[in-house]
């Protein structure tokens, strides 16, 4: 937990974008570890697979493609720090108050839900029976996003002989 918070703070303060992306990787991995401690193995492994193995690589490619080649240090300074601190600090205080004052044990939905032993077989069953519509819609969403991303970022048909 300390590692997750620490690497997030590092993202906040560093100037170099690539270091920020790597600190993001550390954050993702520590969150995955926290997920495993909370008993959600499937989600933890999905997090590593999708976030670290997919999104982070996309981000690093994006960093490489959007800076003028030649310099290794890609800098990004922070602006409006005071306002940023004020806004985020205020939100944090509100959330802090909310979390510490809430009594989670007394909520109604807590008592009503069925208590299942989290296991992957049950996970798969629930995914396919109770939540199958959401599952199919997410598949469709991914298809649309993929087509959209390829269409947006692709080059025009005439220049089809680039190397990478």
């Amino acid at each position, binding site marked *: 937990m300390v590692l997750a918070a620490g690497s997030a703070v590092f993202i906040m303060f560093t100037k170099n974008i690539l270091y920020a992306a790597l600190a993001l990787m550390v954050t993702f991995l520590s969150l995955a570890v926290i997920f495993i401690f909370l008993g959600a*193995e499937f989600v933890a492994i999905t997090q590593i*697979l999708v976030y*670290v*193995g997919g999104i982070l690589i996309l981000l690093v490619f994006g960093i*490489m493609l959007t800076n003028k080649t030649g310099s290794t240090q890609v800098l990004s300074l922070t602006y409006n720090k005071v306002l940023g601190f004020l806004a985020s600090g205020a939100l944090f205080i509100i959330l802090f108050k909310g979390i510490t004052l809430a009594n989670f044990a007394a909520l109604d939905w807590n008592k009503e839900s069925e208590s299942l032993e989290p296991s992957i077989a049950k996970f798969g069953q629930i995914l396919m029976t109770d939540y199958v519509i959401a599952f199919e819609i997410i598949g469709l969403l991914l298809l649309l996003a993929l087509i959209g991303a390829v269409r947006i970022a692709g080059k025009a048909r005439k220049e089809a002989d680039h190397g990478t």
Partner: protein
Amino acid sequence: MIAFLFFLVFFLVYALIAVYGERKISAFIQDRYGPMEVGYYGILQMIADLLKIIQKEDIIPFAADKRIFKPAPIIVFTAIFAGFAIIPLTSDFMGSEVEAGIFYLLAIVSLDVLGILMVGWGSNNKYALFGAMRAVAQIVSYEIPLGLTVVCVVMISQTLSLQEITYQQGIWWNTIDPDAQNYLFGIKALGIETTAIGGILTWNIFRVPLFLLAFVIFFIASLAESNRTPFDIPIAESELVGGFHTEYSGFRWSLIMLSEYGIMLLVSFLAVVLFLGGWNTPFPNIGSVELATWTSGTPGTFTGHLWGAFWMISKAFTLVFIQIWIRWTFPRLRLDQLMNLSWKYLTPAAIILVLLSALWRMLMI
């Protein structure tokens, strides 16, 4: 803990054997002798190489990004070594009995990609960067047929845990699941029970003959994952200009090489567990000539462990040998041919295989 130490030692010993074996095998394929000077028949060559690498000066280029340059090979090595934790060497010897075994392995391979990217970026060398970006594109594209063929196996076996998948492919299935039965080609309607026969007939490539094709696709994808020829564009550049590990020398370079051999072993182990029966024996029990029970001890006993480890390691080494053999036989694929192969041929084939495995599974009920 024991598994961790065992795999570490095994991995290092394997690396020595594999590099020596590669040099000798490549020599024989190319009709020459290979290393013959050091030791009898060149066996001590690897020790000499190891000593040379360890005492080399650790050169870090002046303009390289030190904070990324230094940890990058360690990340690559750790990511691959962490994948060994879920391989069942024998019926009881596993690093950790996670329920989501195979899924974890796919995630680990994705983690390795980031290490390679760091290796390329930290060198501050545009050739290294090109090599790294091509390597990443290649690995990411071939993860898809790899994952899809794994999904085929998981659908038939109904479990993500590698240990259970191995149990299902042998004569000891009834020790963990008393009323399970294996059928010839998996089709229940044929009525030929093969649980007691065991041997090669219960391996996954016979339980579902489609898996022969799935095995081939998995093998090709795994060659691409380990950056081996015919897919070694990222490292072949070392013969042209520089690969993604140009700026590394000495011990850091040896870590990267170690992880290349490591991932070869990892995917060989995975192919053996998923398709070739894991630690089960290939000899069937035919009538009263009970070859299967003679050549594999009961799970839990010491002889069981020895037989299981023997079969597992020998099958994995056979696959590694085939990988080395392929490396020195085929020419290198160009980058666009490589991408073509993955996206236009392997991925649709893998998708159709998933559909067919689902249909086959229905026949198995």
